């Protein structure tokens, strides 16, 4: 007659077998769940926008296989920043938005913009520049001005030279000058009066009577990457004709009263520029006639400005004309200043300045220049509504493991009770 212990053995085997079968079943179910690719679903309701950190986190989830979607209202607003190539340290912010936009920085509101595109040139932005439209904020770091080279003014003694130098110096340029006073006397200012790409960003020529030696040195300077501005009576000196993009096709005197009518450029004598070369770029027109023309020559740039006697703008113009005259000249020289040298000097200046005082030059990791575009790029277009939430289906029924565990523990306890190992 079998003992009690022997009678329990079949039950123990059965419990062990059933427990192992249940565990094997759980393993098969889990394997199948992985094979089906079951994922979590994440939906975000967005009001105004997401922080770049949150957006990147969601994008990481999506990249890991989760289903991430979003819905809500994010305005289309984009901001970009570019350093103004002048010594002022200003940044030009370009903003495009589909509704009214408030522009500001960490200190508060700076300006506002109606729907569309706009540009704000300003200096001294604290923190990040922000464009807020309907609750969505595009932000971008200011880009500070570079350490530009000096400017060499070559002209003859006169009001145009004097006030051009004054305007450039007031705008922050360091100016060298060589001004012809008589056949034997030249008035010099500054430390270097020969064009030199190592020292000068640009040369401004205001004297049409250039000697061959001077003209050759200027041509070498331009081909080596320097900028050249030809203005007024010197808009196309014979000795530099090969560098220019336009010829003078007419000379007009200034219109009396134009200063008082708010048309200061019409008050100035004007050399109309025409017969443009194929590579000429017209930067400015007056009455549909080319007034400021540019072209590249080897590594340098040449700007021709047809406006003469611009000093009258400063002296005779209405309120604000001093600033406008200053900006005119600084812009001309900044346009001619070499881009490559500009970039190199900018980087050098930024590394120097960032080590000292100017956190604004360090691009911020949290800048968000185009919130909507970045969101769509990261997570796809918005969904009209949040998707209906399906009940989560666990690939393993919770009771399966419990029963398997119970059976195995019971089998082990039975064996221990009868003294088996």
């Amino acid at each position, binding site marked *: 007659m079998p003992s009690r212990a022997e009678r329990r053995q079949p039950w123990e085997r059965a419990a062990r077998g059933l427990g192992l079968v249940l565990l094997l079943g759980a393993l098969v179910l889990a394997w199948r769940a992985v094979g089906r690719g079951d994922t979590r679903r994440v939906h975000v309701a967005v009001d105004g926008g997401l922080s770049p950190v949150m957006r990147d986190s969601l994008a990481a989830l999506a990249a890991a296989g989760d289903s991430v979607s979003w819905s809500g209202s994010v305005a289309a607003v984009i901001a970009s920043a570019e350093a103004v190539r002048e010594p002022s340290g200003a940044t030009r912010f370009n903003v495009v938005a589909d509704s009214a936009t408030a522009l500001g920085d960490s200190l508060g509101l700076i300006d506002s913009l109606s729907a569309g595109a706009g540009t704000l040139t300003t200096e001294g932005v604290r923190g990040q520049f922000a464009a807020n439209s309907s609750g969505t904020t595009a932000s971008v770091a200011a880009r500070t001005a570079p350490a530009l080279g000096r400017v060499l003014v070559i002209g*003859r*003694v*006169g*009001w*145009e*030279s*004097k*006030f051009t130098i*004054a305007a450039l110096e007031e705008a922050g340029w360091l100016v060298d000058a060589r*001004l*012809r*006073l*008589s*056949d034997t*006397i030249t*008035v010099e*200012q500054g430390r270097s009066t020969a064009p030199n790409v190592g020292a000068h960003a640009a040369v401004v020529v205001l004297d049409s009577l250039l000697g061959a030696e001077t003209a050759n040195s200027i041509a070498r300077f331009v081909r080596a990457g320097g900028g050249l501005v030809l203005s007024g009576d010197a808009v196309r000196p014979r000795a530099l004709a090969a560098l220019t993009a336009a010829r003078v096709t007419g000379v007009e005197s200034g219109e009396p009263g134009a200063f008082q009518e708010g048309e200061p450029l019409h008050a100035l*004598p004007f050399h109309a520029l025409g017969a443009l070369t194929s590579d000429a770029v017209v930067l400015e027109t007056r009455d549909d006639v080319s007034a400021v023309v540019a072209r590249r020559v080897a590594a340098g740039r040449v700007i021709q400005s047809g406006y003469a*006697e611009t*000093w*009258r703008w*400063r*002296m*005779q113009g209405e309120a604000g*004309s*001093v600033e406008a005259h200053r900006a005119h000249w600084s812009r001309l020289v900044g346009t001619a200043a070499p881009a490559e040298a500009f970039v190199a000097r900018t980087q050098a200046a930024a590394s120097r300045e960032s080590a000292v005082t100017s956190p604004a030059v360090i691009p911020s990791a949290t800048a968000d220049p185009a919130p909507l575009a970045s969101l769509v790029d990261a997570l796809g277009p918005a969904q009209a509504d949040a998707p209906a939430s399906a009940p989560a289906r666990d690939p393993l029924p919770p009771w399966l493991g419990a029963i398997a565990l119970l059976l195995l523990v019971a089998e082990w306890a039975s064996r221990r009770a009868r003294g088996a190992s």
Partner: protein
Amino acid sequence: MPDFVFATAQYDSGDWDSAPLVAANIIDGLARYTTLDVAPTGVVVPLGSKDLFKYPLVWLTGHLPVRFTEVERTTLREYCKRGGLLFVDDHNHDVDGEFHRTAWEEIERAVGPLKDLPSDDPLYRAFFTFEDGPPTTSHELNGWGDNLVHKHLQCVKFGERVVVLYSSKDYSSEWSYHPDNKRFLSVDNSKFGVNLVVYALTR
């Protein structure tokens, strides 16, 4: 249009036209020593008019008390801010004279207080070199007027830029003669006028 036009300021009070030949003399000096494109005759420009801004260097002189109108003061202030330079010369050569006292008051009221211009200022090397500062005049050396030899000119500066120059030396008398008569002089006594114009054109 010529690069330079010599302009004499006309003000409401006083005798602004007391030295009519100064313009011709300075123009002669510029033509003689430089290749500046200079207008052959000078102009007279009212101190309170917008035409003042066409001439970034203006000469002002007289013997009689000076009292600017409010428009003249405002215009002169704006003229100096924009880059103009006013040269004022006391035709009396007399620091106790009416012109001197009233002109100083008016300049201070319109632009700012006058201070001595150092003798090593670039003005004295702008073309000819004057080692000792402003050249003396025969009126000083002969003891006329206040019987003083004035060592300095005075100036008002905006920043580093001179906007008003004041002279007690009476260049108005010294230079008010027909340029043809320079041939009777062993040394051209109007050379400092060339410095003044070149300084204005380059500073």
